[in-house]
């Protein structure tokens, strides 16, 4: 299925609005992780808007698909998407990281907001996804479990324990997405702790694997279709993305992994996102 030009344009504009919110939230908090939030904002939005079975009126709808943000430091992206689909009031976004806010620096379980489980310590989400997938199978519920992993967190051994279990239990309702932006806190993933050949590793663990250009919405949507070819096994979409995507000075750098923009940077970032928006409209 190819997105029509109009639909694609609308999606791109929504994603840019989400990215602007991410920048505003982190600027206001003067703390947070812009790089890895900007890289995966498009995936999270696409999941909620186009892929997952959800009920916009009821975040706790029992038949919903489950999303787990294993790379919990991308909380601003999750919150901004949940606001866009109506689970979180937009005003609340700008309380990010404040004392007393519902929106902590990393996601805390909050069923009313559609946050299924707390995350932030890396390497835990895939195991949690395995548990959700087993539960859905036990209950014969036709739901999918989506887990978004950072590439840096693939260093964690527990990810690979979960990878073993996912294929051992033939969890074809479990879909992992790797945000393959190639950069972790201290440098490039290949410099710090080499992951390649990454697709081969997942294949060897018994997963159905595809690589996609995650910056291309059509390719991403098709990716979620393509993984359906893998019968009786869990699936992983290695999504090549850009750390800090769409803000020139945050792109391809580790500098903004966990650093908030100052006033000048904030204004420049918003201006750039608005320019992209204008070029689309």
């Amino acid at each position, binding site marked *: 299925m190819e997105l029509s030009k109009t639909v694609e344009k609308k999606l791109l504009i929504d994603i840019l609005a989400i990215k602007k919110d991410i920048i505003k939230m982190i600027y206001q908090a003067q703390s947070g992780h812009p790089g890895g939030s900007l890289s995966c904002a498009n995936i999270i939005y696409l999941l909620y808007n186009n892929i997952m079975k959800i009920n916009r009126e009821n975040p706790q709808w029992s038949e919903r698909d489950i999303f787990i943000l294993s790379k919990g430091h991308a909380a601003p992206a999750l919150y901004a998407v949940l606001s866009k689909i109506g689970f979180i009031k937009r005003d609340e976004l700008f309380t990010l990281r404040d004392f007393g806010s519902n929106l902590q620096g990393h996601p805390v*379980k909050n069923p009313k907001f559609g946050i299924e489980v*707390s995350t932030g310590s890396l390497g835990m989400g895939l195991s949690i996804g395995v548990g959700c997938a*087993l539960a859905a199978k036990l209950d014969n519920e036709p739901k999918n479990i989506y887990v978004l992993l950072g590439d840096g967190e693939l260093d964690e051994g*527990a990810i690979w324990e979960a990878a073993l279990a996912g294929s*051992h239990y033939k969890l074809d309702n479990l879909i992992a997405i790797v945000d393959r932006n190639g950069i972790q806190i201290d440098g490039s993933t290949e410099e710090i702790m080499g992951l390649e050949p990454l697709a081969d590793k997942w294949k060897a663990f018994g997963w159905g694997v595809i690589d996609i250009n995650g910056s291309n919405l059509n390719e991403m949507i098709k990716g979620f279709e393509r993984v359906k070819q893998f019968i009786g096994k869990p699936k992983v979409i290695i999504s090549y993305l850009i750390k800090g995507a769409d803000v020139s000075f945050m792109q391809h750098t580790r500098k903004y992994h966990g650093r908030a923009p100052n006033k000048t940077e904030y204004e420049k970032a918003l201006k750039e996102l608005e320019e992209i928006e204008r070029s689309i409209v």
Partner: protein
Amino acid sequence: MPETDLRDTFGNFLVDMGKVNNNIVVLDADLSSSTRTFKFAKEFPDRFFNMGVAEQNMVGTALGLAISGKIPVVSGFSIFTTGRAWEFIRFACHDNLNIKIITTHGGIVGKDGSTHNALEDLSLMSTLPNLTVLIPSDNIELIKILEYTFNKDGPIYIRLPRGAFPTIHDENYQFSIGKPDILKEGDDICLIGTGYGSILALESALEIQKTLKISIKVINLPSIKPIKKNKLINEIKNTKGVVVIEEHNIYCGVGSILARIISENNPLPMKFIGIDNSFGESGIRELLLNAYSLNVKNIKEKIIELIKIN
């Protein structure tokens, strides 16, 4: 008739619970024959998940099952489960999930040696908010604790030994969460035990009273967290000193928890019996307990020291 292993009581109880509650699922880390969860596995193969030798993923999977409405029971050896998977347990507690961590081989295991002893698990677990920490001192208490555990929503840790304990309760015993259980009345000195410590406390009190002309009270503390402090203080306030006996490192163990409560609310001289900053070693369990200070003689010495203070 020899006593039943607490592990078997646990394994049989799980099967009974499995029959009445379809939401109960059991996970083990390749130790189901040791922990006795194999009994559940045999009866309910669809609701048993052997997660292999991978405690972190076992507890992580339990988190996912719990947020999906299941009641996961996680089992394994005490130190591997609480130690290797500690941070996953922390998240289960953080989100107050309905997960039951019930492990065997707590305390001194015997011939497997120091690497397999669990002398730090109570510290690791008691520091976690939302977690209830329970230790049975015999099969009767274990059943009451298990009944409580499956009637109560939220994360619970239960530490079982590898083997059997003598029975010190009668069938009418009532377990009450947080409440000290009085095994023997007495006026002068109070012994507080948990798990095997309670058995040793009771045995020691009866023995020591034959030679020392003092009246010894014995309290069993099955609930390490929570502890109802008023009930505890009421029981000890008229005694002249307290000896805590635990099969655990005395650094950050049950004695430390009690010392905080007692010193804040009703200061009394205290002595602590447990493993003193060691990992232990291989050997027959009974010999090891004796060698690592868990014996009547040592308890008697501590009591004499307390009497001298007074």
